């Protein structure tokens, strides 16, 4: 047989679907020379071409690491506030109980004092860190005796665990995800480095994890790893990582509907693939089983069983079970442990919202008190409106299960959850902000319009965290980090240039200029935020309303987040349409 006739090598599909460029990074200085469009571009100016990523990446990671560590020198939540202290003490306490108590007592021990209420992976993580910390000093985690400990060296250790966990999970995940994502969208390496720096300096995430003290980045990192696996086409790994994220912090549920819709979607469109569906389901179940296995095995022993049921009342979920079980059987204890964990993780008995958080319920509550309704009704309304808000993005992802439009969908759904769901914390704003900020690395992600919107949402997000950060004595890091981020990305209040017309070098992207309406909305919000800071700092609230400024913050925040939700939804729809259109074109050309 003669060899097959010459066929031109098929172009990579992505290359025709997207045409990324560095155009949005430079502007015309007037004499034909290009100058950086915003300060972050200046800092990476030397990396435009011919510099190895082996150099740029370590430098970027060192810089963002230094800022993290510098923030961690400041106060943390609950410092010198007995008797309960704060999140720092909660995390330390979990290390203390997990290394000293048998698995059967982890979710039942002295629940009044920071009882464990995070999923199992957090518990294992705490156990590991507790073991490591005990090598340095056993008194840091002495059972009961170490409560409220505020040793400066303990602080250093705890801060180090956050940063190490982040560098082992979040940072590798973000770096590999961005590498894949930018390659897929044909974004140049230089733009990718700039986007990476911006993403890793997101003020809200840094301030909460390294200032306030939490391990959110581990959960976020596992989630990004899951996204990365999707981009790579390794759906089973995506399931495992996502179960990991859920198993670290239940808040990852904000992302779950999209992940579910996507994974279901790829099994049905363009053609039904039962095998894939089965294997995804199987792997997910298996991952959950592995996650729970140590805790389940821990209650099979005779002594452990006694431990479990002697001190704790039967969890409501177990009571609600239609069948009665023999109280001495192993199955009963397994179910007891499982339902106890679920009961601890999902506090359905708490109110619609806690504290002041910038979501819809808190905003409505300001004008129309929601206490008058029954808790049950409120729960149902909350569930209904959350479902309504996530229906469209989930439907789009289900019908068009494409990895490249996942980010706006995830951001939309997370905003929906943040605005309408039950028991939202102000810190949960990190969840919608992450996928939204990751869009910076996408095609045209650094152009003025996208940058303006993402920057604005991040500024607003950290602004709504201010009352919380102020309680922890983190005002200075807050101002420094938000201002720095605004400065690097060329956003107000440091520069209003992003809303002014600038001549770009090639002048091909006039469409990238922010819309008039965008300018008005953003300017209004920035001015309000600035004015609020001035008010909050210098004007004491009127006597009868000590929380007035916080309430005001919440109202503005909720409004802004509503707009962010709409923007992400619009972005999703337009990206989806553009994608379909391009795919159609490619098909026609072939």
């Amino acid at each position, binding site marked *: 047989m003669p060899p097959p006739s010459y066929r031109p090598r098929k172009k990579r599909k992505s290359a025709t679907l997207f045409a990324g460029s560095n155009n949005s990074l430079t502007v015309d200085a007037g004499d034909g020379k290009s100058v950086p469009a915003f300060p972050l*571009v200046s800092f990476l100016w*030397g990396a435009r071409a011919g510099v190895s990523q082996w150099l740029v990446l370590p*430098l970027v990671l060192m810089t963002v690491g230094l800022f993290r560590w*510098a923030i961690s*020198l*400041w106060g943390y939540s609950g410092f010198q506030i007995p008797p309960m202290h704060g999140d720092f003490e909660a995390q330390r306490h979990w290390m203390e109980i997990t290394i000293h108590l048998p698995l059967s007592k982890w979710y039942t021990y002295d629940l009044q004092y920071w009882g464990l209420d995070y999923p199992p992976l957090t518990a294992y993580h705490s156990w590991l860190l507790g073991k490591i910390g005990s090598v340095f000093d056993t008194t840091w985690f002495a059972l009961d005796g170490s409560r409220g400990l505020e040793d400066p*060296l303990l602080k*250093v250790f705890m801060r*180090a665990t956050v940063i190490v966990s982040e560098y082992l999970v979040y940072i590798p995940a973000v770096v590999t995800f961005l590498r894949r994502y930018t390659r897929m969208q044909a974004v140049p390496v230089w733009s990718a480095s700039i986007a990476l720096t911006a993403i890793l300096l997101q003020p809200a995430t840094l301030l909460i994890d390294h200032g306030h003290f939490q391990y959110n980045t581990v959960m976020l990192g596992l989630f990004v790893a899951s996204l990365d696996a999707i981009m790579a086409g390794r759906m089973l790994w995506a399931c495992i990582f996502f179960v990991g994220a859920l198993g670290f912090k239940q808040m990852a549920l904000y992302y779950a509907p999209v992940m579910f819709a996507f994974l279901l979607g790829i099994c049905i469109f363009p053609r039904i693939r039962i095998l894939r569906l089965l294997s995804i389901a199987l792997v997910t179940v298996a991952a959950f089983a592995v996650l729970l296995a140590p805790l389940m095995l821990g209650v099979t022993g005779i002594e452990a069983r006694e431990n479990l049921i002697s001190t704790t009342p039967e969890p409501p979920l177990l009571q609600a079970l239609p069948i009665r079980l023999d109280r001495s059987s192993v199955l009963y204890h397994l179910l007891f442990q499982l339902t106890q964990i679920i009961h601890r993780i999902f506090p359905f008995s708490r109110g619609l919202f806690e504290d002041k958080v910038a979501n819809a319920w808190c905003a409505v509550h300001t004008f129309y008190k929601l206490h008058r309704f029954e808790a049950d009704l409120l729960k149902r309304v909350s569930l209904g409106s959350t479902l309504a808000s996530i229906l469209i993005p989930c439907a789009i992802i289900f019908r068009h299960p494409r990895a490249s439009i996942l980010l706006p969908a995830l951001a939309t759904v997370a905003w929906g959850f943040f605005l309408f769901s039950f028991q939202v914390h102000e810190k949960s704003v990190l969840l919608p902000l992450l996928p939204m900020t990751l869009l910076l690395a996408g095609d045209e992600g650094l152009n003025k319009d996208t940058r303006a919107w993402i920057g604005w949402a991040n500024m607003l997000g950290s602004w709504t965290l201010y009352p919380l950060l102020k309680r922890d004595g983190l005002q200075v890091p807050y101002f*420094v980090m938000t201002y720095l981020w605004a400065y690097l990305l060329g956003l107000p209040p440091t520069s209003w240039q992003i809303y002014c017309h600038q001549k770009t070098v090639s002048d091909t992207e006039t469409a990238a200029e922010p819309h008039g309406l965008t300018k008005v909305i953003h300017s209004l919000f920035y001015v309000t935020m600035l004015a609020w800071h001035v008010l909050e700092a210098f004007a004491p609230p009127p006597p009868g309303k000590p929380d007035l400024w916080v309430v005001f913050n919440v109202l503005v925040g909720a409004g802004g987040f509503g707009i962010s939700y709409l923007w992400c939804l619009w972005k999703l729809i337009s990206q989806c349409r553009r994608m379909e259109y391009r795919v159609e074109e490619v098909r026609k050309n072939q």
Partner: protein
Amino acid sequence: MAELYPSLTQCAIVATAFKVLLFPAYKSTDFEVHRNWLAITHSLPVKEWYYEKTSEWTLDYPPFFAAFEWVLSQLAQYADPAMLVIQNLNYDSWQTIYFQRTTVIVTELVLLYALSRFIKSVPQPNKQLAHAASLSILLSPGLLIIDHIHFQYNGFLYGILILSIVWARKQSTLLYSGIAFAVLLCLKHIYLYLSLAYFVYLLRAYCLDPKSVFRPRFGNIFKLGLGVVSVFGLAFGPFASWGQLLQLKDRLFPFSRGLCHAYWAPNLWAMYSFTDRILITLAPRLGLPINQEALTSVTRGLVGDTSFAVLPEVSKEHTFALTLLFQLLPLIKLWRHPGPDTFIGALTLCGYASFLFGWHVHEKAILLIIIPFSLIALKDRRYFSAFRPLAVAGYVSLFPLLFTAAEFPLKTVYTIFWLVLFLFVFDRIAPVPERPRIFLVDRFSLLYITVSIPLIVYCSLVHQLVFGLERYQFLPLMFMSSYSALGVLGSWVGFMVVYFTA
């Protein structure tokens, strides 16, 4: 102007953000020293400034620095008046910390201004080199560690030094250069180490005719003399009229201290001590006599006097003679060829000589070499190869200044960041020299830099794990300073060769 990004201002903004975040970091006793000076200058008449001794940290800087503290104290009363009470020893309310740390950041603007003048003073083709060198000084880990964590005002002082160097580059501004240096001396007398180079250069280039040494320019001599004398008169005149000069001398030059400073500055004497320690173990086999008194000395190796067990003692006169000798050698060349770059080279070599051979040298004095050297490190690759081990050794030798756990990641990561970034950038842009390079120097410096990694790991981690926190405390310090001393010494020899062959 092509491609000078990021600009100095942009870097300064980001660096300032980082420095503000370092407010709660560890601060040494120098913080209390400066607070005490604020209190002294604010609450006592000038006459009593140099006699006050409630705190052990008496005023031991020259009068202009005291006046500078007085100016700051006028602002300090609005931040927290309690910090201005002399009896409030070790007072550190958060207002005090914020205020003092802010003054360091704000006064550093002088350095920023000086560096921007330096870039302007360089001809167009070399702008990029000057820009890179300026950024390396602005972001120097030395300034970060010493000023913004440990606490001092070096940024501001080195700003004046660089301004003076910039003015020394043009004949028309030489007068200002001399006056600026006189002001600098009245701010901090450590710059006396560099004064010989200034003296020779100003004398040759400003006071004498460029063509002939025997034709003095009396107008210039008069102007410079008047300027310098009035600066010193302004600073010391009042104290002289009160008859306090001897008291000032005792305060400014406390010669009762030992050869090596508490932390073993990486100079010749550190290597000398190290050799002595090794000889103690070898002495019985070699049949050398051991000074038993030195062996039992309690403070051995850590604080105060180092006495040597095997090697001969070193006296102040020895160190002084050596310093002078090695300062004079480069000055001969400066006298014969008084050009601006030779001047900076001579300044650097004066810094080297006083650092390597001086009595009771502080490790912080390494900036006295690094900062002038940075200005010419990019002249060509030969200069750069001499600069490289100095940068590594100099900055690594500052690590023992910060010994707290929380600051360990800051100092190491920041220094590594700086070294990776600037050594790479310098390597890319340093021009090829006109003369061939010295063989093997590059290999030596590469090997040298590689050794630093296991050494830092040992000194900061392994040693404590093996010996615990208490035993052989001096060992890591000695390793670090001997290692650094080797680098400083090596770079000195390298630079001497470059300087004399240029």
